[in-house]
């Protein structure tokens, strides 16, 4: 296998590190048209070699890896959060519990678990718009939204969401009037934030399931609003 190209600095602090040759970045194994996901050609090999080493040493069970991947590719995702939002829209007492203690309220719907243990739900209103970011890395409420999208983890979003939230929202197509207060939530601790979007007008006759179908991942991060169509 190719040697790992980079070693971590000694801890604590950014001490000296032994840098080896940095392997050239190529797009050779790039299997998706996505410019900022450039893949050095040997990453696939490095990961395969590491997995086979960990499996041979009995440190990890490959079937457990499969099960974990299956969970986040097919079971846990933003549809969970959408059901939470729809329930809050139709059930005022649930909404009250959700805003008071998000973690236990989502457990009522079966969405407890990893990275949703300490959930804080923040409510959008006509006068307040909430936006969630993790400037330090990628903290995100997995149990209700699944794993975060690339843009959420990217330097442009993390750097700008706190200093220029209105500019960020315009880039997402949401131009808020100056009269609306913007609250940015930087997930620096172990609280995880979910935005409760406003229920769009014209949805009075929709049932909970139809309402859930309107709710997008982006609206629950706060970079979009929910629309009726």
């Amino acid at each position: 296998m190719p040697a790992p190209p980079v070693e971590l600095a000694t801890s604590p602090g950014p001490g000296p590190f032994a840098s080896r040759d940095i392997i050239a970045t190529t797009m050779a194994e790039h299997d998706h048209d996505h410019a900022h996901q450039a893949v050095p050609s040997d990453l696939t090999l490095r990961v395969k070699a590491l997995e086979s080493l960990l499996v041979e040493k009995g440190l990890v069970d490959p079937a457990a890896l499969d099960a974990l991947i299956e969970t986040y590719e097919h079971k846990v995702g933003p549809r969970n959060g959408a059901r939470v939002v729809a329930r809050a829209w139709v059930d005022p007492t649930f909404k009250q519990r959700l805003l008071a203690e998000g973690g236990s309220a989502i457990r009522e719907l079966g969405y407890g678990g990893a990275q949703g243990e300490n959930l804080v739900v923040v409510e959008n209103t006509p006068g307040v718009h909430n936006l969630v970011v993790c400037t330090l890395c990628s903290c995100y409420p997995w149990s209700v939204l699944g794993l975060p999208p690339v843009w959420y983890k990217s330097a442009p979003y993390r750097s700008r969401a706190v200093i220029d939230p209105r500019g960020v929202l315009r880039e997402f197509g949401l131009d808020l009037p100056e009269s609306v207060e913007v609250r940015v939530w930087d997930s620096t601790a172990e609280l995880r934030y979910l935005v409760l979007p406003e229920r769009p007008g014209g949805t009075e006759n929709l049932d909970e399931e139809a309402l859930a179908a309107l709710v997008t991942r982006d609206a629950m991060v706060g970079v979009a609003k929910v629309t009726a169509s």
Partner: protein
Amino acid sequence: MNGVHDMGGMHGMGLIEHESNEPVFYARWEARTFAMNCLMGAWRKWNLDASRHGIERIPAAEYLRMSYYEKWLTRLEGLVVESGLVTPAELTSGRPLPGSARAIPPVGAEQVATTLGRGVSPRRDVTVAAKFQMGQRVRARNANPTGHTRLPRYARGKVGTVDRDHGVFLFPDTNAHFLGEKPQHVYSVRFTARELWGSQASPRDSVYIDMWDDYLEPA
């Protein structure tokens, strides 16, 4: 540490590349890397904070160049060697040392669902007096630790208001270095956008940052 990962408020990072209907993983190596990182934590040779610090210890230029899961891979390669689970020679060769014992993985496929369902909360059920009250004006300390911290640079020295008390959590600055959990209160502190960024910011806007007791002093 004042690393490049602490990027709140920086300029020059480019436009946000939003993508509709992106896959959870772009390639199988990303998925395998994600899952190996999660499951190797079960050996408890490191904790969540040490693991975050592993990402932060990637040299700055490399951090900016790497994709998200390349950082995870680099972190895992670093942690398995530092913790002694794997020797440097094994990592280089990709094979266990001849004659080395075979372990039993702590999490099997059938335990994944219950392990995830249980979650792992760094909240601590201990009584610790809160140093600050709701509504109190507080200043984020001007501190520049060389190790792990969750006190972002853009907040240091700034004055905010305690918006809510989230209860008691372990302290990442010590936990990341295996120096104890030091449980203490975490608050959501509201900083006005103008306090953080000056007069060009909207007078209505604010940033809420989660802060541990040790990050704050009375203002």
